[in-house]
């Protein structure tokens, strides 16, 4: 081992980075951006999930608990009519509602049993815990104040899914789409840049090929690959991992087609902003990671700090993930307005990216 030769290698590496300012910037800026985003997402005054309260109790206990829940910072309570509860769960304005039935106080006094009805929406990870926690806190303070030994026996019901859903069911639905989107994006952007670096793009542009023909050809080729992958991922998720699915498999597949098309065109479009394959790979932390954090895969969009919700609302992945979850966890079909919106937005993004890809193709040559 020669220290001199080793030093030569080290020095050369650092010199290369000095000439590639962009990589250098990425190396030092991207971690701060991603960590700030994560920090803001989790600690930045996250919006508390909306919980409906319907107090029909003829005694005093329901009102006591309701006011305790109202003070909780973990949830945002709304007084509702129990008949509206299910509608509000369906339209997404509430993640849960709690009903204190007419005989609620009577049961507490006679049997020392606290038995509220808890209706959970059930398709969003991470929204149930705050509801149950807030209720637990309210009960603990009630029990301490009344010095009664009471048993907590809630009647929990789920609008979608149920107690059998685990984290994999929530994340599986989203990841089916995410894996496809991510891999197709990377493969496309790298192939397109290779087309340029090996000089073949120049040949293509000096042939009668139209720009649109190149983009559509790429799109079909990679989409075929992506669809084979989609079938594999789907079969593995549904039959090997047994991820919960309540909807039509063809709808899941349809969403995957749209995501594959978006990913291909995003790859073609962004390849214009990179000179080398190395720089293309750098788009992953810039383009993919924020989308993963903000598209509701890990944290429901409704619980994000409000400014981030605006960003989430313009990310295509948000709609794709939402659509996939609606189909798989709620059994949504195309008659649902929510699913029409998701599918429509994803398809719209797809079209937009196709034109963006075609529009930027000419400039990258000259």
């Amino acid at each position, binding site marked *: 081992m020669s220290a001199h030769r080793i030093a030569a290698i080290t020095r050369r590496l650092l010199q290369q980075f000095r000439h590639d300012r962009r990589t250098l910037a990425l190396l030092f800026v991207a971690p701060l951006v991603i960590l700030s985003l994560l920090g803001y997402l989790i600690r930045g005054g996250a919006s508390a999930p909306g919980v409906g309260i319907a107090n029909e109790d003829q005694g005093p206990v329901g009102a006591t608990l309701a006011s305790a829940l109202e003070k909780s910072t973990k949830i945002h309570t709304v007084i509702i009519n129990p008949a509206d509860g299910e509608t509000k769960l369906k339209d997404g304005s509430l993640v849960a509602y709690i009903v204190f039935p007419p005989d609620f106080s009577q049961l507490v006094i006679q049997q020392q049993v606290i038995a509220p009805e808890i209706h959970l929406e059930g398709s969003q990870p991470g929204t149930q815990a705050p509801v149950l926690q807030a209720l637990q806190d309210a009960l603990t303070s009630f029990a301490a104040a009344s010095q009664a030994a009471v048993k907590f026996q809630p009647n929990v019901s789920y609008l979608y899914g149920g107690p059998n859903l685990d984290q994999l069911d929530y994340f599986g639905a989203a990841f089916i789409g995410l894996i496809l989107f991510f891999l197709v994006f990377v493969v496309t952007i790298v192939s397109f840049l290779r087309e340029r670096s*090996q000089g*073949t793009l120049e040949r*293509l*542009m*000096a*042939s009668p090929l139209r720009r649109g023909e190149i983009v559509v050809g790429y799109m079909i080729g990679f989409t075929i690959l992506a669809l084979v992958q989609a079938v594999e991922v789907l079969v593995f998720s549904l039959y090997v991992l047994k991820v919960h699915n309540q909807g039509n498999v063809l709808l899941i597949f349809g969403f995957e087609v749209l995501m594959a098309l978006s990913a291909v065109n995003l790859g073609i479009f962004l390849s214009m902003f990179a000179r080398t394959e190395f720089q293309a790979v750098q788009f992953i932390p810039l383009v993919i990671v924020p989308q993963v954090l903000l598209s509701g895969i890990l944290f429901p969009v409704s619980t994000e700090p409000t400014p981030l919700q605006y960003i989430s609302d313009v990310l295509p992945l948000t709609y794709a993930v939402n659509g996939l979850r609606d189909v798989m966890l709620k059994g949504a079909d195309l008659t649902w307005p929510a699913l029409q919106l998701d599918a429509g937005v994803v398809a719209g993004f797809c079209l937009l990216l196709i034109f963006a890809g075609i529009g930027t193709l000419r400039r990258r040559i000259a």
Partner: protein
Amino acid sequence: MSEAFAVDVDNVVKSFGTLRALDGITLRVRQGEIYGLLGPNGSGKTTLIRAIVGLVAPDSGNVSVLGHRMPDLNILSSVGYMTQAAALYPDLSVEENLRFFAAISGADGNVTEVLKTVELEARRKSVVSTLSGGMRQRCSLACALVHHPRLLLLDEPTVGVDPQLRVQFWEHFRDMAAAGTTILVSSHVMDEAERCQRLGLIRFGKLLGEGSPAEIRAAAGTNNLEEAFLKLSGRASE
């Protein structure tokens, strides 16, 4: 527009930032001739060829190819373009590359015939990344020929090619010209220039002189083409 000229470049200017790559160049290539574009590195040869094929949009001036004002995608099916570096798909076989380039030019492409021309028949199933540099260059030439273009644009086709292969290349060019194909070839190798019917000397994006090798030599008052070229360039930079 008449089709008297295969290539008609009229007073073309193209700048990249402060660099004037083409500085009002006018040049005409006749049907069926081998026209050599001669000039040192950075003189504007590649930019001129890219402007002819429509990859570079001139700031001013006109380019016509086979009677069609460029850019015109349709006429490109009659043009073969060989770039400086062998632009091929390294993970496809020789034959797959050829079929691809034939297909995008809208021709069936007689692959076997072209492979015979460049003597790559034995390697038709070989993946390009396994070929030697010279073979890649031949494959690249084959890709420019496969759709039977009427105009062939060759940007330094013999760079990195051994002398024996270079002789073969020039034999193909002569055969093709004899069969009616117009060839515009750029080079900075003077012995190649001798093989052209007409030469254009280009420097600083301008045409310094034009004519047959004999005419160029006579104009410079020397019987060595290399000297002639240096003399003519010297005059221009004064």
